[in-house]
Structures are given as C-alpha cells and as structure tokens.
C-alpha cells in the first residue's frame, strides 16, 4: 500500500460499514461514522476543492471547529490530492487581531491556495487575505454536502499521487511555529504507522479513545490517523469538552471499552486532582492497556498521582506507558511500557547537572526518578551526540539525534531551516537526554522552546507580545518555562525591563504587568501568570548583546522566585 489515499479507499471497499470514528461532542449528538460515511462526507469536500480550481499538491488550510466537518474536510483534501493543514480556530480567549496576524504569517510562508472554514469565521478569514496573496478560494463548511455517488477508481486516476508526495502539513503554534510547517509524505506517514503499530502490539481488539486536538501531532497521528487507517475504532472527544469536564474521557473508556489513549503529562495531574467523586460513578478503566504519556516532560510523580486516584476504578499499573515523539518523525520515536513495565531510572541529581552523566544514585545523594521513554520503534535509530556531533556512550548526556524512514520531507517552503535541522543525515531534535540499556531518557532541551500542556511555545513570540506594552523597554524582555510539579507542566515566566526610575512607588508598574499578562494571554496559546518587572540593566545579555534566556532563567530561579 503506497499512499494514504489508497489505504483509505481500500478500507472503504473492504469494510464500508465498519466504524471508523465515534464522535462525541457535547454540542452535537453522538455520531457513528463508518468508513462509507467518512468517504462520502470527504468526497463532498474533494469535489468542492476540484470545482473551485484547486490543484493537487496545493495547500489547503482548515480552520474548523472540532467535529464532523473537520474530519471530512481533512480527508476530502487528501482524496483530492491537495495538502491539508489543520489550524486551531479562534477561541474566546484569543484576541482576533493577534490571531489574524498569526494567520497572515502562516499564509506568507505556506502560500495556501484555499482555506476551509465555518460560517461564523468567514469574515475573519476574508479580512486576513490581502490582495495578491496566494489564497484563491475560501470554502464554507455549511455549503458542502456529502457526495452520494462515489467511484473509487475515479479518485485514483484523478489524483495519481506518488508515495513521495507531501500528504499533509503539521504546525506548532505562535507566529514562529506557524512559519515552520512540518511536511510529511505518504511514505513517511505509512512507515510510521506500521512501525508504531508493531511497537504498540496493535490488534483488532483495540479501541482508541482520544480528546486531543487534531492540529497537534499527538492528536492527529496517534489519536486519529493511526486508528482510522488501521481499521481500529476511534472514540473521539472534543478537547474543549475535556478541559471543562475531564471525567468525560474516563466515561468514554468505560462505555466503549477503550484500550489505548495518549495524554500529555499535565493531563495526569489534571485528571487526578480535578474530577469530583460523583463524576466517577460507574467508571471502569480495566480495559485500558496503554495510556501513553507523551509530548512534554514526563514526571514519575504524575504517574503515581494518576495511579493512586484511579486504581480503585480498575486502572492497572501496567497501563501507564510512555512515548517520545515529534512531528518531524511523523510521531513516535520510542515507546515504553507495552511488554514490560516502564523502567524508572533512579539517578544522581548532581551527576546529571554537574557531570552531565546519568549515574545511578548512591545512598545519601539527592535523587531524580527518570521515567524511561522506552526503546526506539523498529524503523527509527537514535543516537546521543556531544557538542561536536560525535556519538557519546551509555548514560552520557547529549543531544538526541534520530534517523528513520519516516522523517519529514522538510519544513514547508523553508529550505533554510530544513538543511540546518540535519547533520550528516541525522535529525537534531534539540532535546537532551541519554540512553541506558537501550532505552531513551529525555532530560531537557537544548533550544529555548517552552512546552506547556504538550504545546510547543516559542519564547520569542511571547517576548514580542510583551515588548509592545507601553513602558516596557523594547527588546528587553525574556520568556522561559519553569517546571511545576503540582500541575505536571511548565509555568511560563516573563521578565521585562521597564523605563521607570522611581521603581518603588510608580503606579505604572501594576498597569504594565497587567497589560503584559493580557497581551500574552490573548495573543498566544498560554495563560500568562508570572510577570516580573525589573529595572533597566537587570537582564543578562550575551556577548553579542542578545538577551540570554537560560542565564536569566537561572537568575530568576535563585533571586526572584517566590513560593
């Protein structure tokens, strides 16, 4: 099977009535979507794109609410041969102006030919499209209906995609993330799904339950394409419902005998701490065989918390599994906990920080419990490299580099970034870690990326937003993340230098910090709480005059952090 399109059409022919997706959204009645219904719904979009003059190989941006139309628009674009890229839609928290700026940044680099959106958002999209831009058509979801007549061979002859063609783009958030679309080929997707299925021991008795958003690799690949293209039933919830009522995930697992789910680390804390006993009545988690912790640093404590809370509801400790993944490898790099319990490596805190070696802890030493991310999946090779890009030995800390048959084709329309990302055929992940007994442990990051609740946040985007506040000295702002064990994810901190001489009594200080919070919260994917204003000259700069994020983070942790 050489393309995603062929795979999809084969499922339609072999198992038209088999359930592809059971869609649970609080706004809509439960929908059972068979492969037949999925293809007919998607064909409506494929035809609409063709009628609008969109050509195979052109990019189609999907800005749709989580629901049936998003599924059809996504697969419709693939059937048509164009390249879908799913974007988060504008939520009530985001400022429409900032959202439009991000969209513009995306349009500039990605040069999409079409946008598919929902009626309420149409005017926002139209305002973003400047004359002379690449977007020729904006399709509205309520004007597209399923196609009743389908001839599968008609699709294949029309699109004729090669396995090496790009099938979809994945972006992370913010202006920076949107300018860096990970382009993935049919081959890359199918190779990943095959290798990852083997790592998971996926079989026909599995049921995937997911609440993850589809604009994120974990949601799109593990929680969407993996089950759909493997003829494994998927129970799909809305991320917006889950965040309000996390118990819905557990009820979905109970009701549909879910076996597999993926969660970012913070979700373990969130579920363990924020579900009322009355909302757990009737919950039975005994069918869950693998709940994989993925997409942000994993804490041993989060697993313990989750286990303590849900063991009485049938959760087995063997169900707590781990995964290391990135969009550049389509998804999984490694998986732990499927055939044996996840290894916990007890290492010396000092060894890790000072000697850069993960040495097993000795009595009396301060200890870190590292959760193993498991072994590489069988199509992916992993090496740990030192600063000169030479491979280091077991337990030595270095940058994680990967090589596989499912790597990205490149960052879309960014040859500059694509070539920098590789060294002699190895993709440099920017993550730091070590290997012990063949298993991968991720300890931190080389680059300044902040990961909050599984979302990648680029500090420069937050710094730019804060710099716009009146009173902040332009360019004298730093943003970074600090781990918070209670929430299981990172807190974002912003430190800004202000042009105020009378620092003790100025009434402006509250206004400035409020405005920074507001601007960053409404202009990004995070809710900013921790803002520190400092006098001019406080921030540490590099020899070239740039603000040094990691040094300022250290200074914050030693001097300013409260509580």
């Amino acid at each position: 099977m050489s393309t995603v399109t062929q795979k999809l059409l084969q499922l339609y022919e072999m198992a038209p009535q088999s359930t592809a997706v059971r869609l649970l959204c609080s706004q809509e009645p439960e929908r059972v979507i068979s492969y037949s219904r999925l293809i007919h719904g998607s064909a409506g979009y494929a035809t609409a794109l063709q009628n609008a003059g969109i050509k195979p190989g052109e990019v189609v941006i999907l800005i749709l609410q989580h629901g049936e139309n998003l599924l059809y628009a996504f697969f419709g674009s693939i059937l048509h041969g164009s390249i879908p890229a799913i974007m988060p839609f504008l939520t009530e928290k985001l400022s429409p102006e900032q959202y439009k700026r991000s969209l513009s940044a995306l349009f500039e680099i990605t040069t999409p030919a079409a946008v598919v959106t929902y009626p309420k958002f149409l005017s926002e999209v139209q305002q973003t499209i400047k004359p002379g831009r690449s977007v020729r058509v904006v399709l509205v979801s309520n004007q597209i209906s399923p196609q009743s007549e389908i001839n599968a061979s008609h699709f294949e002859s029309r699109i004729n995609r090669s396995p090496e063609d790009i099938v979809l783009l994945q972006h992370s958030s913010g202006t920076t993330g949107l300018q860096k679309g990970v382009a993935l080929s049919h081959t890359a997707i199918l190779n990943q799904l095959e290798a990852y299925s083997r790592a998971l021991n996926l079989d026909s008795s599995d049921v995937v339950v997911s609440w993850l958003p589809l604009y994120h690799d974990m949601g799109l690949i593990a929680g969407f394409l993996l089950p759909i293209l493997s003829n494994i039933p998927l129970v799909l919830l809305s991320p917006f419902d889950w965040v309000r009522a996390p118990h819905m995930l557990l009820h979905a697992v109970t009701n549909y005998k879910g076996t597999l789910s993926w969660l970012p680390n913070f979700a373990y804390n969130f579920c363990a701490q924020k579900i009322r006993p009355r909302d757990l009545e009737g919950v039975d988690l005994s069918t869950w065989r693998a709940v994989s912790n993925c997409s942000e640093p994993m804490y041993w404590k989060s697993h313990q918390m989750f286990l303590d809370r849900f063991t009485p509801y049938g959760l087995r400790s063997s169900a707590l599994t781990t995964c290391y993944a990135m969009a550049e490898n389509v998804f999984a790099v490694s998986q732990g906990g499927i055939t044996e319990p996840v290894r916990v490596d007890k290492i010396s805190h000092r060894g890790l920080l000072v000697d850069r070696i993960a040495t097993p802890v000795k009595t009396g030493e301060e200890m870190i419990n590292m959760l193993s991310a498991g072994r590489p999946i069988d199509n992916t090779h992993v090496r740990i490299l030192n600063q000169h890009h030479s491979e280091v030995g077991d337990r030595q800390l270095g940058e994680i580099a990967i090589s596989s048959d499912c790597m990205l084709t490149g960052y879309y329309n960014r040859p500059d970034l694509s070539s920098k990302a590789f060294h002699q055929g190895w993709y440099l992940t920017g993550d730091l870690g070590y290997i012990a007994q063949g298993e991968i442990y991720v300890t931190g990051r080389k680059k300044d990326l902040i990961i909050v609740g599984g979302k990648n946040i680029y500090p420069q985007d937050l710094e730019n937003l804060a710099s716009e506040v009146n009173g902040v000295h332009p360019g004298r702002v730093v943003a970074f993340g600090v781990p918070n064990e209670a929430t299981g994810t990172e807190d974002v901190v912003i430190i800004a230098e202000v042009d105020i001489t009378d620092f003790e009594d100025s009434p402006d200080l509250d206004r400035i910090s409020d405005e920074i919070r507001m601007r960053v919260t409404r202009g990004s994917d995070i809710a900013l709480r921790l803002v520190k204003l400092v006098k001019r000259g406080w921030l540490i700069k590099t020899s070239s005059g740039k603000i040094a994020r990691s040094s300022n983070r250290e200074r914050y942790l030693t001097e300013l952090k409260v509580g």
Partner: protein
Amino acid sequence: MTTEIMQTISTYIATQILKQPKRMLLPDDPLISNGLIDSFCLVDLSLFIEKTFNVYIDNTELNRETFDTLTQLTNLIQSRM
C-alpha cells in the same frame, strides 16, 4: 450576602488563579473574555464554588455563556443557594 460571596470569589481568583494577591477585581471586570481566567481554571473555580458555598455546579456549566463577571457569577451562585 452578595458582597461576601463576591469578596470570597474575588480573593480566590486573585490569589489562586491570577497569583496576584493584591489585585483588586471590579464586579463588572470581564474575566473570561479578557483572558484573565482560562478554561483550565474554570474547573478549579467550579470545584471551589461547590465546596465553599455548598451549591451544585457542574464543570460544564461555567463558561462564557453563563458568566463573564463577578456580578454574574455571584447571581448564579445565589440562584442555587
């Protein structure tokens, strides 16, 4: 009574959610639409309200449609007492 409820919620939001104990919230300050409270905090807020005022509030009940200000939230709580 209204003032007490409002004060209790206001203190909770300032200290626990915003982490700015000195912060004063006005009764009609927009909370959700201004990005002060995000969806993750809504779950905390509903748990806090249930426990403190002994009223029944489901997680999904608290959203932009049901309240955006302290005044509206206080009215909602009083209607349940």
